[in-house]
């Protein structure tokens, strides 16, 4: 058995039980509805800032962008201004494509080895597609959830909801994003479980956020489509949290507390996990720097003098040999003092 995903799965199940028992048996609604969410958001913000500051503390000594297209050189060669950006504008475009469209992941190809001794490469869009679906549907879900924290609900949120419910099929309103989110997560999980190479490189730390997110999506969908949830109560609790007048309305089901607890755990784990790629991508020196490295000097803050082998030392060692073959020298050999004649 692969202990890595089992460990993560069990961890998420334990978390589920904690919240369930905590609310249903121990009546710890205040803990799960107020204290932990507050701690979580605090941990998230402080942790995130701390990590980004940590990265920022280390300097970028060299400009090392990965160039993915023709550089700017002579005027008749067409520069690839985005994949080899010599200007800040180009870098912004490159970063925007990277962050908003996962440009590099879109390049993904799959290598195959044929029996006839050929290696072939095929377009492989599934990782890119599932990653894109996951991130965007998650974003839409988060934006939609802001309706719980705002009164009146701002227009952009209602607009997002409308767009998300484009394919309306009966009641309750059917939001695409929730299902897309779950589907993408299941696909990403399946990759880790069934593609041998991806399974081999996966750590428990890769499975845990997946299981946790699946838990979040699943409990969310359950509440929306299968069980009756006291929406008014949930909104009251959420508004209480954001206005710093926390209350615990009666009648909110345990399922909601499990959902909220999962989200809290995600926020707590975020700064200490690979999820920090959200911040890190902005700081990646192979993407966020201009490539005009020969045109504009870049200064390394810790550049220090090093031991050198000067021309003088070189000539001192080889002077005779150089003179013998007619190579120019800076210093003529010291002529042997002529013996004094008596």
């Amino acid at each position, binding site marked *: 058995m692969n202990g890595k995903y089992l460990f993560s799965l069990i961890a998420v199940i334990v978390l589920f039980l904690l919240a369930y028992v905590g609310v249903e048996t121990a009546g710890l609604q205040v803990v799960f509805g107020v204290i932990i969410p507050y701690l979580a958001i605090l941990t998230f913000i402080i942790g995130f800032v701390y990590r980004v500051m940590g990265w920022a503390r280390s300097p970028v000594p060299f400009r090392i962008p990965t160039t993915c297209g023709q550089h700017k050189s002579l005027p008749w060669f067409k520069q690839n201004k985005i994949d080899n950006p010599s200007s800040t504008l180009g870098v912004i475009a490159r970063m925007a494509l990277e962050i908003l469209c996962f440009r590099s992941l879109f390049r993904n190809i799959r290598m195959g080895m044929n029996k006839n001794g050929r290696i072939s490469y095929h377009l492989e869009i599934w990782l890119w597609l599932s990653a894109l679906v996951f991130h965007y549907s998650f974003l839409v879900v988060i934006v939609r959830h802001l309706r719980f924290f705002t009164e009146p609900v701002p227009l952009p949120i209602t607009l997002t909801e409308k767009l998300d419910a484009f394919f309306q099929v009966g009641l309750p309103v059917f939001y695409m994003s929730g299902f897309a989110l779950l589907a993408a997560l299941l696909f990403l999980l399946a990759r880790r479980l069934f593609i041998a190479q991806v399974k*081999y490189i996966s750590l428990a730390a890769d499975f845990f956020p997946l299981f946790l997110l699946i838990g979040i999506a699943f409990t969310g969908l359950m509440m929306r489509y299968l069980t009756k949830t006291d929406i008014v109560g949930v909104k009251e609790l959420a508004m209480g949290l954001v206005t710093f007048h926390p209350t615990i309305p009666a009648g909110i089901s345990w399922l909601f507390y499990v959902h909220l607890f999962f989200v809290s755990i995600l926020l707590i784990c975020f700064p200490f996990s690979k999820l*920090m790629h959200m911040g*890190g991508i902005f700081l990646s020196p192979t993407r966020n720097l201009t490539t005009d490295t020969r045109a504009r000097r870049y200064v390394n803050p810790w550049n220090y003098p090093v031991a050198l082998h000067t021309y003088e030392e070189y000539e001192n060692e080889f002077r005779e040999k150089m003179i013998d073959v007619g190579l120019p020298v800076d210093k003529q050999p010291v002529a042997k003092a002529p013996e004094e004649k008596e």
Partner: protein
Amino acid sequence: MKNLPKPNEFFSNIDHRPPKETDWMKTPIDIRKGMYCYASNPKSVEYLGLPYPRQWNPLEDDWKLPDNWQQIIHEGFRELLDKFRSFKVFMDICVRCGACADKCHFFIGTGDPKNMPVLRAELLRSVYRNDFTKVGKILGKIGGARPMTLAVLKEWWYYFFQCTECRRCSVFCPYGIDTAEITIMGRELLNLLGLNIDWIATPVANCYRTGNHLGIQPHAFKDMLDFFTEDIEELTGIDVSPNFNKKGADILFITPSGDVFADPGTYTCMGYMMLFHYLKVKYGLDVTWSTYASEGGNFGFFTSHETMKRLNSKMYMEAKRLGVKWILGGECGHMWRVINQYMDTMNGPADFLEEPVSPITGTKFENAKSTKMVHICEFTADLIKHDKLELDPGRNDKFKVTYHDSCNPARGMGLLDEPRYVINKVCNHFYEMPANTIREQTFCCGSGAGLNAGEDMELRMAGGLPRANAVKHVHEKFGVNMLSCICAIDRAVFPDLMAYWVPEVDVTGIHELVANALVMPGETEKTTDLRAEPLLGMEEQADE
């Protein structure tokens, strides 16, 4: 080569399935003959003043490490994290999506899962988590952390010298995580314990002392170029004697010493000499070579940032001493990553040089105005564009040429179209390899970053397989018989790679092709190319 299986056996033995149900951390390290390079010669390490010079053997259990080696690694690790944001970020943000896995030529050619870029980086990350993150410390193995042990150290050494720092994986990584950067850091840490390979350590020591990797002393360097001069005179009837260490020349020319030393790079070197002579006679351009800065390449780059800087310093120092206007650089791979992304920062500003302008065409090389070093492909492309070279591409008609983008000019610079422009002007038959194997997606020769030794031939044939396979494709489809490149390591290693995988294909530099096509004023009728092989349709004349 003789110990290798037959190519088709080699190919069908590659298995990309990872071991079943085995944790990679539990897979013991197996340092296998043919897959590693010999340990550094202590004399070379000592000459450079680098730490812990000693005789040691990777196959022996005892690597004769200093007692506090773990502490040295830990402190070195911390220092690198504090100095390089790239390193810190790359340690933290990988999500192990696996997009990089089958992009690595070493993984494709060996099937060894630790050659997946992600796992190569995890070799360091696992120790990073243990030593520098609280979560890693608390969770231990389940958190992907492990303490630094001798087995881990050996794994580092083995796999950081199975990476050619080609950056192909970083093109595909959604966060731009660059395994070259990871390997550079890993090797820098290993060097703190004197754990280099000799194919790097000795060239570095040579370069520091004699000015070039091969240890050619000034008189011998001159002799070798004089020898080429004689060869060229025999072929063309023209004396192209170059300048050496000439003060007040217009341009200092620096190229890898590999091209002075071994075929087929020597023909590229002869190509430079003919081009410069042509420009001198026709336009009065005064180019000088230097015996002190007689190396374009920089194996210091494969040792540590400091060593890279020490070797690179000679370029500017020599340009200053000779009082040239600017520097012209020859065809080389990693040399150009160092010049493009490091040199000005490390050893600049080069305010004693002029912003490079071609005295022949008047073209300003705006893109090199700070570093003041121009790539010869830019320079030649500009000459051809302005019709300054008399060329007869028909002289290359027996060649069906394809072009290999060297990793560093492609992914550390973006020099993609200049060489193609030049090739198309000097050859009539040019064919591209498949799109996923060229330009920014180019495959490494499999022997870069100091791995072009003789003892690791199996590794080299594995790493070069994807490139060779693409050459094979155009060989079978278009009859390609000449693989051109702009890297001296390529020229040194492709003949072996081709001999093994695609024996019908030969190797050349771009400026060999240029020189073949160049119509020199006053030349005798050309019946052969630079290799003294008859031109197409000139077989009889050449025999006379």
